[in-house]
């Protein structure tokens, strides 16, 4: 019976004017917002999770306060701080890293990109721990100078001629030989990176002392909180300031999740408002529909339709309008999510959009229910019409 009412409702929808469909715009926007929001934030979460798994839970990062990531200028960590941390036991290794934006030249073309410097004797192990795979060539060896490992985009896109193992590049006036090319990682920042040994980085950037980030690999994950505290205490004692921060993977994750949480609250608010507007739109359109079809209601009652049948038909109809808006919203939302994904990728942040069927189905169901709910009052009004009065309506 419900199926038959559905067919009846479909019939009447087919005869409705385009204008009445415009009222679902709110539902479309609301559902699109929800779908894109959920998709993006879940994709973001899983991307970050994956990246941190790659990064490793066994790592503590020490950087100067205000240092927001590779590429920005840090205040002042030095090799002294590295020594301070190395004296604490419990680490597998402690790596000082230097990050600078550098000028890169190849056959007369110039480009700018992030240059990272890591101690030459630690490449092998660090790359293994990070899960970095080389597409071509090898890592930098101990004591080696003026060699570089380049990202896949540096090799393929940065210059009009592709670079390969053995190519020569000039970084800040120093000539480097490419010894390895990293497999494509998928985000612009990593793939555009050039990694050289810390020793050479100090020479070309003229930074004999400075360290941007200290990466401390712990032996056992369970020691992390304790070691973090120790690092903080020791650094504070030696440096006599607190111009540094000590971060663990889980803390960084927490921070990102906090930002995500705020973003979600804002977007949920927007989605809720547009859904409310959409619901009011559907309600309004259903009242119009009831009015337009007063005569039909009279006819149906005259041939035996009970009040419940009339209200069911109208409820299904408004549910279908909601569903229609939901379908468009899901499409729009999915498209939006992919768009955001590709924007963020262009901006250098890896975001792999994963479409979850369950989220889409829930979105549709939600839109259908909202449609139904907004149809309750109009449907009730329709069902209460007196048959004679409805029949007389022209």
């Amino acid at each position, binding site marked *: 019976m419900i199926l038959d009412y559905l067919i009846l409702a479909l019939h009447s929808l087919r005869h409705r004017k385009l204008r009445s469909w415009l009222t679902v715009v709110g539902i479309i926007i609301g559902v699109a917002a929800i779908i894109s929001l959920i998709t993006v934030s879940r994709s973001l979460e899983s991307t970050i999770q994956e990246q941190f798994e790659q990064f490793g839970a066994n790592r503590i990062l020490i950087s100067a306060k205000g240092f927001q990531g590779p590429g920005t200028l840090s205040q002042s960590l030095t090799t002294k701080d590295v020594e301070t941390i190395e004296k604490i036991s419990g680490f597998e290794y402690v790596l000082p890293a230097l990050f600078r934006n550098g000028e890169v030249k190849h056959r007369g073309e110039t480009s700018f990109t992030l240059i990272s410097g890591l101690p030459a004797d630690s490449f092998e192990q660090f790359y293994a721990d990070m899960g970095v795979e080389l597409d071509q060539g090898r890592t930098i060896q101990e004591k080696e100078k003026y060699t570089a490992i380049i990202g896949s985009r540096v090799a393929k896109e940065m210059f009009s001629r592709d670079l390969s193992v053995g190519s020569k590049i000039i970084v800040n006036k120093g000539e480097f030989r490419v010894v390895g090319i990293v497999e494509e990682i998928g985000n612009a920042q990593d793939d555009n990176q050039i990694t050289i040994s810390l020793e050479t980085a100090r020479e070309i950037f003229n930074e004999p002392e400075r360290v941007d980030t200290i990466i401390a690999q712990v032996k056992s994950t369970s020691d992390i909180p304790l070691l973090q505290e120790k690092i903080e205490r020791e650094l504070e004692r030696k440096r006599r300031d607190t111009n540094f921060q000590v971060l663990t993977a889980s803390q960084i994750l927490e921070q990102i999740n906090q930002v995500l949480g705020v973003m979600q609250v804002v977007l949920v608010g927007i989605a809720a408002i547009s859904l409310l507007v959409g619901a009011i739109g559907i309600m309004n359109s259903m009242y119009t529909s009831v009015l337009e079809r007063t005569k039909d209601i009279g*006819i149906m009652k005259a*041939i*035996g339709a009970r009040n419940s049948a009339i209200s069911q038909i109208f409820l299904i109809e408004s549910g279908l309008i909601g569903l229609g808006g939901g379908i468009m919203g899901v499409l729009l939302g999915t498209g939006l999510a992919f768009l955001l994904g590709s924007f963020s990728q262009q901006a250098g942040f890896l975001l792999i959009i994963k479409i979850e069927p369950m989220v889409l189905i829930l979105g549709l169901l939600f839109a259908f229910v909202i449609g139904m709910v907004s149809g309750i009052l109009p449907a009730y009004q329709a069902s209460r019409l*007196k048959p004679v009065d409805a*029949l007389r309506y022209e």
Partner: protein
Amino acid sequence: MTPLIKLENAHKIYHLEGVDVPAVNGLSFTIHQGDFVALMGPSGSGKSTAMNLVGCLDVTTIGAIYLGNQNTKNLSESDLAQIRGKKIGFIFQTFNLIPSLTALENVALPMLFQQVSRRQRLQKARKLLEMVGLANRWQHLPNQLSGGQRQRVAIARALVNDPEIILADEPTGNLDTKTGNEIIKLLQELHKQGKTIILVTHNPELTKQATKVIQLRDGKVVGG
């Protein structure tokens, strides 16, 4: 024998801007199974109001209407809908088809409200369309049909739940004489098959075929 329909001092009073309009004003008559009633009277004499009361589309202000032994005054809206769906077939002057549905769907619709399966509905609706001579018009929408054809669709729809009573309120009022006569013939055919028919008409010719003539004036039976 219990009459099929019995009106006892039925009143229907409309209130228009503080004035009481007694559309039906103390109406009493009985109709038996198998009757062909011609309900006559000048315009505004209360014929349609009386039909609506008999057909349970409306309820009396005062007085009672019995269908068989059932006093319709005591029934709920849902029960009245059941009676309209099962016992009564309406034929209106303005056809009253649903414009968004095809002829076949219009005819099948009353069965939907009686929980008949889709297959059975379509089967029955086809059969009835065939009976009224519209077998090849089943896909047409009402506005693609002539007046006479629309009224035939309405008749098929009125018959689809095998009602005992057919109420036809000026069914030929919007039709030319020839088409109107064909519709009347169809009603006479139904009467022969045993249906009880109440026909509102202005045509005195038809009183000859009727088993009973009721004349209304000012909401009352003339001479009653």
